[in-house]
């Protein structure tokens, strides 16, 4: 892997640039954190406390490890604490590499996001600082140093947390999730069956990523089928386990035609073709010495009921600044959104305020709540109230966001057709959304 991705470091628009010059001795540093607890920092939005947090991000840790800590900035030999409440967490990114992140606790996206290569960093407490609990993340390859100050109550846990972080960053899974954590669980399940990723890709026509597969397994009961396979006699070692599996365990009842498979794996698209062009991956099968037949696996997939399991959608963090900015640069849109802001002297009716509101934990909670309700398929009548067209109502009745999105896009088209340009946009239509028909047509032709 190339060295370039060792440290892809991004800093948000704030002025907190951390010095890159390596410092030889920590003892030269002057730590300034006494005024850090100033709770009157005006920029700080008070963090969502327990109830909110709980509703907002179910379960305590959605990350590999997380704890409360603030960041520190370094200028010359002075390391100053940023008084904001923050949290450090390690998250596995799409690239499958651990990311070391810092964000303000009320924010949803990280201000610091470092991709970490295995064993490239060390994390340790800085004993030189006596006015607070400071720790240091040092990147071995570049000698870069990043400082943070602990905001956790309990100092006795620090070492444990550092160790967890270190474990995550060095590629080790933290102890508590080592049993069968996340993707690993699926992967090892499959490996136990003597199936590796390549085989799966072939089975599924090459277009399904592991997430979708994981979802398929977890959502539709295939997991338990797999469990059943795995649980067959003599599960002594993975190899033995896999060998013990014979197609006999797959009863005819399970082995149904594969026609439904396409739908089951619809998220991955292109899966429909899979059954017909299935090559026999003798290499993989031979390598692992498994007796399980690919057709058996196909049958498992085939028997999976789609169960109307819509792909998971998380709207809360989707309304990002990047996506909102182009919308809010259009005054006609702003004019339509502001009337739905809270009407109060303290809430300016501006595009900026729309941005602030949409980024606020309170709004995100509302979106979360809306999305959960939508998925229960009970919002049809409510959506009807908003005149979004019958297809949108139908999508709501099915709890299907993808169809809902399609319906809204179509709805826009038909409205355009009936109302003509300029009839709807408050500001005479100039600069309105209808000005880019090219884009829209392109979008539509995809359907």
């Amino acid at each position, binding site marked *: 892997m190339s060295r370039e991705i060792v440290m892809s470091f991004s800093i948000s628009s704030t002025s907190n640039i951390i010095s890159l010059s390596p410092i030889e001795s920590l003892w030269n540093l002057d730590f300034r954190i006494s005024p850090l607890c100033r709770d*009157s920092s005006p920029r700080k939005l008070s963090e*969502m406390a327990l109830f909110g947090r709980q509703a907002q991000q*179910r379960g305590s840790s959605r990350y590999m490890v997380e704890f409360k800590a603030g960041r520190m900035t370094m200028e010359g030999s002075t390391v100053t604490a940023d008084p904001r409440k923050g949290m450090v967490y390690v998250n596995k990114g799409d690239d499958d590499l651990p990311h070391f992140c810092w964000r303000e606790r009320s924010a949803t996206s990280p201000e610091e996001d470092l991709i970490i290569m295995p064993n490239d960093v060390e994390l340790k407490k800085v004993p030189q600082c006596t006015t607070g609990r400071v720790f240091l993340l040092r990147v071995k390859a570049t000698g870069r140093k990043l400082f943070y100050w602990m905001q956790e109550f*309990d100092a006795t846990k620090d070492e444990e947390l550092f160790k967890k972080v270190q474990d995550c960053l060095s590629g080790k899974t933290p102890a508590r999730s080592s049993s069968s954590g*996340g993707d690993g*669980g699926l992967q090892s399940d499959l490996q136990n069956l003597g199936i590796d990723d390549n085989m799966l890709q072939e089975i599924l026509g090459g277009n399904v990523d592991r997430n979708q597969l994981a979802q398929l397994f*977890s959502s539709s009961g295939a997991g338990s089928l797999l469990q059943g396979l795995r649980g067959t006699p003599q599960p002594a070692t993975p190899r033995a386990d896999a060998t013990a599996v014979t197609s006999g365990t797959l009863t005819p009842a399970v082995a149904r035609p594969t026609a439904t498979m396409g739908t089951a794996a619809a998220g991955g698209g292109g899966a429909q073709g899979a059954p017909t062009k299935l090559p026999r991956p003798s290499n993989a099968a031979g390598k692992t010495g498994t007796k399980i037949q690919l057709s058996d696996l196909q049958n498992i997939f085939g028997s999976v009921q789609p169960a109307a399991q819509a792909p998971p959608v998380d709207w809360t963090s989707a*309304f990002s600044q990047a996506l909102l900015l182009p919308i809010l640069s259009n005054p006609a849109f702003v004019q339509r959104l502001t009337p739905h802001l809270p009407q109060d002297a303290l809430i300016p009716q501006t595009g900026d305020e729309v941005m602030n509101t949409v980024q606020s934990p309170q709004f995100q909670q509302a979106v979360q709540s809306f999305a959960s309700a939508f998925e229960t398929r009970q919002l049809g009548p409510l959506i009807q109230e908003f005149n979004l067209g019958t297809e949108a109502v139908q999508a709501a009745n099915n709890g299907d966001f993808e169809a809902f999105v399609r319906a809204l896009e179509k709805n*826009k088209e038909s409205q355009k057709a009936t109302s003509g340009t300029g009839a709807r946009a408050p500001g005479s239509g100039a600069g309105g959304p209808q000005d880019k028909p090219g884009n829209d047509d392109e979008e539509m032709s995809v359907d």
Partner: protein
Amino acid sequence: MASTHGEWCTIESDPAVFTELIRDFGVTGMQVEELYMLDESLFEQLRPIHGLIFLFKWEQEGPKKSPPKLADSKNIYFAKQVIHNACATQAIVNILLNVEHNDLKLGETLVSFKEFSNGFDPLLRGQCLSNCEVIRNVHNSFARNELFETFGRKAEKEEDVFHFVGYLPINGRLIELDGLAEGPIDHGEIPAGRDWLHIATPIIENRMNTYSGREIRFTLLALITDRKMVYSKQLAELQAQYQSMPTDDISQQIAQLNGLMQDEVEKERLSKVENIRRKHNFLPLIIELFKVFAESGNLKLLYDEASKKGQERERRNKRLKTEAS
């Protein structure tokens, strides 16, 4: 949504919520701040601290230790908790009715509530509190604008139960007010010349440690004197000093205090905005956003982003589940 049928909603254990809550009860001179460290440097900035509210995830069967030592409740106002969701208000009211400080003005509602219920036993006081319409209405006004409560939010079936406990000094002793306990719990005398917070710190830390390893979250809130009141008192003194003897030092201090005052005003504004948002019905804005995104041709982008995040979330949840099992 606010209910008139004697129900209590859960509210967020957020300092902004608590501060506005007690002000809506009619209390003046007080505010609530979050303590995110049990540390003298933090205490120093917030003094005077009149009481602490400790919030933690409540578990039915804790390790049964020896029963806590109950305090002589004669001079302590203690109401037992009879309704679960009321515990936030319960805890803060229990503290407020025991604080004796010149900065605190309880206001008509709480004064008459105390007078009315003072002669009752803790259980009956708790029932009185649960049935006090004024207090309940204020409490419920802080419920999140939950549009879809009736739709059975599937993910919250296993909703965690949180519990609030108050700590404060009463007549020279450190007292814990836990609405689920039989009475006020006595943590012993506060030695002369020592700050009660320093006595309370190890006790609370201890409590946190007993939950260690189970990833239990805590919030610690402090009832403190209204910062603006503190600052304007200090300002008045400094200005008087300055008039009799103007020095650079004093004018510098005045400038600094003015800065703090402005920060506090700004913070208060932000808290109010937060609370306004908490109570707002965002559904029309959500729908309008969807429409606007559709019209701009960006809805597909938004959806793609949402599914990307959704898949990430799914993965995390899966990981969590396997961890839990």
